């Protein structure tokens, strides 16, 4: 399982300290956790998607080892240092490869991003990893309610006005602890209670049931990065349900 950004940074620092003190085996456990980050860095550098079995992935693995060997806390954050090392090794590899005849398919690839020039790119990679982690959690929670992301894409309201109404209901449910408990226990939306308590149109709530549940789960499980995407674009009044 992947870690959030802060967890990853803290864990990397701890692992480095252990590695530096002589515990070399600790890297074996840490490799699968740090590898997605390194793959994203190499992917950004190459301008294409890098899989675990690609040549660049093995170069990234070697770069992790090099980073642990040469890292000095005075050089700043370990993750940034690791990203620079991976980027440099990938560039070196590409230069070596350029001397060989280039296949035509290689020309289709996007221009590589210069990660070493700025920290924004590394920040973005770290944010992407955090979002990916949240999304994995989100889809796992949705699975408990027998909802998939494909269902959401199909059943979500198409009109902005309808979406706003559904999101407003979701926020209402998420803030109401009683409703939340009912939802998490029964794994379904408490339509009756909503109708009684908030005079919400039962038909509307039932129609967009899955969408409302998904939004409630984002708020309840505090998926902060996704939460920004489910804020209603305008306020819906009490009589507007």
């Amino acid at each position: 399982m992947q870690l959030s950004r802060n967890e990853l940074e803290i864990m990397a620092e701890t692992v480095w300290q252990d590695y530096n003190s002589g515990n070399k085996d600790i890297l074996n456990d840490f490799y699968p956790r740090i590898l997605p980050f390194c793959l994203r860095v190499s992917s950004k550098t190459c301008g294409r998607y890098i899989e675990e079995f690609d040549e660049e992935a093995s170069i990234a693995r070697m770069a992790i080892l090099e980073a642990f060997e040469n890292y000095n806390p005075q050089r700043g954050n370990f993750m940034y240092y690791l990203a620079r090392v991976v980027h440099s090794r990938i560039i070196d590899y590409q230069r070596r490869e350029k001397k060989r005849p280039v296949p035509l398919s290689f020309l289709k690839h996007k221009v590589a991003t210069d990660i070493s020039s700025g920290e924004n790119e590394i920040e973005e990679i770290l944010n992407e990893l955090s979002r990916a982690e949240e999304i994995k959690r989100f889809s796992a929670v949705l699975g408990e309610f027998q909802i998939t992301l494909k269902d959401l894409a199909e059943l979500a309201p198409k009109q902005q006005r309808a979406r706003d109404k559904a999101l407003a209901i979701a926020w209402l449910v998420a803030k109401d602890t009683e409703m939340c408990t009912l939802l998490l226990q029964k794994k379904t939306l408490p339509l009756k209670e909503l109708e009684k308590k908030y005079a919400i149109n039962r038909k509307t709530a039932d129609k967009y049931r899955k969408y409302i549940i998904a939004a409630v789960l984002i708020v309840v499980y505090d998926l902060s990065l996704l939460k920004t995407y489910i804020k209603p674009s305008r306020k819906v009044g009490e009589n507007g349900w």
Partner: protein
Amino acid sequence: MAGKQGVVLEAGDDWAIILLPGGEYKRIRTKEHLQIGQLYHYKNSLAIKSVSVAAVLLLMVAAGLDFFTVTAWAHFSPGIELGINRWNRVVAVETTDSTLKIDNNALSLKGKNLNQAINLIVEEQVSQPQAEATFKSELSVSLSLKDKHDIKTKEKLLDQIESCLKASAAKKNDQSAARVVRNDHELKVVVETVNPVKTNKSNKQSKKDYNNFPKANKEQKLPQGAINNPPRADSWKKNQSAEKVKKESEKQLEKQFKDDNKKPALVNQKDNKKDGNKEKTEKNFRSGKYRKDKDNENKNTTSNHSKGKDKNKSD
């Protein structure tokens, strides 16, 4: 058009599900490999498509309106007016005379090129059945532009109409001859027709016309196109009555050469060219050969007199 920045929730080979601001879940098709958690800039292709379709429709409507806008009116004297657009296409036809010979419905002038329309009108004007053996009809064309100060366009259009009229006049059949006269901003087509179906009266009339025709031609000083108009000469030649008159005129010429020392009048240049005998006599007369022959003739005795006379005749 600014799009929205969403986050990739799920990704496949050529598709992805993204969450857009405002809680919109969207399944998109994409060729690039997206990774979960990656930010994706979503552009609403439907909006772009609808805008482009609207723009194309607007252009088409504007072009259609422009096509059917009349920029100039060509007034034809029989009472027909042709509305011409900027591409010299006839887009409107109006008839001011109810007793109009030219039936614009039958001609279906709308949508036709200006040249084609003029050709049709001239043809229709000439091919009108006439009771009389000969008739003379006139077709005048004048122009009026929406923009009265646009003299260049007016001149261009007039030139085009003139050239077209001349071309159609040259195409006329054997029984008709047409000539184009231009007066400042007006064009006139004079069509003279000899009807092959004739009565006794009409035969006499045609003779008169033939005799009068070359004189009239000289006096009027017609434009070049009209003088060099071959159908006119051919039409008169082919007429049987005209041939008789021609022979008579030849005889008259010979008599004139014999009796007088005066210069004979030029009849018709085209007739002279085609008649070899006439040409020779004329040449001899001009070079003085004719006189020498006449002197020799006087010197000779009465026995030779008859021979010399025959020679002159043959010349």
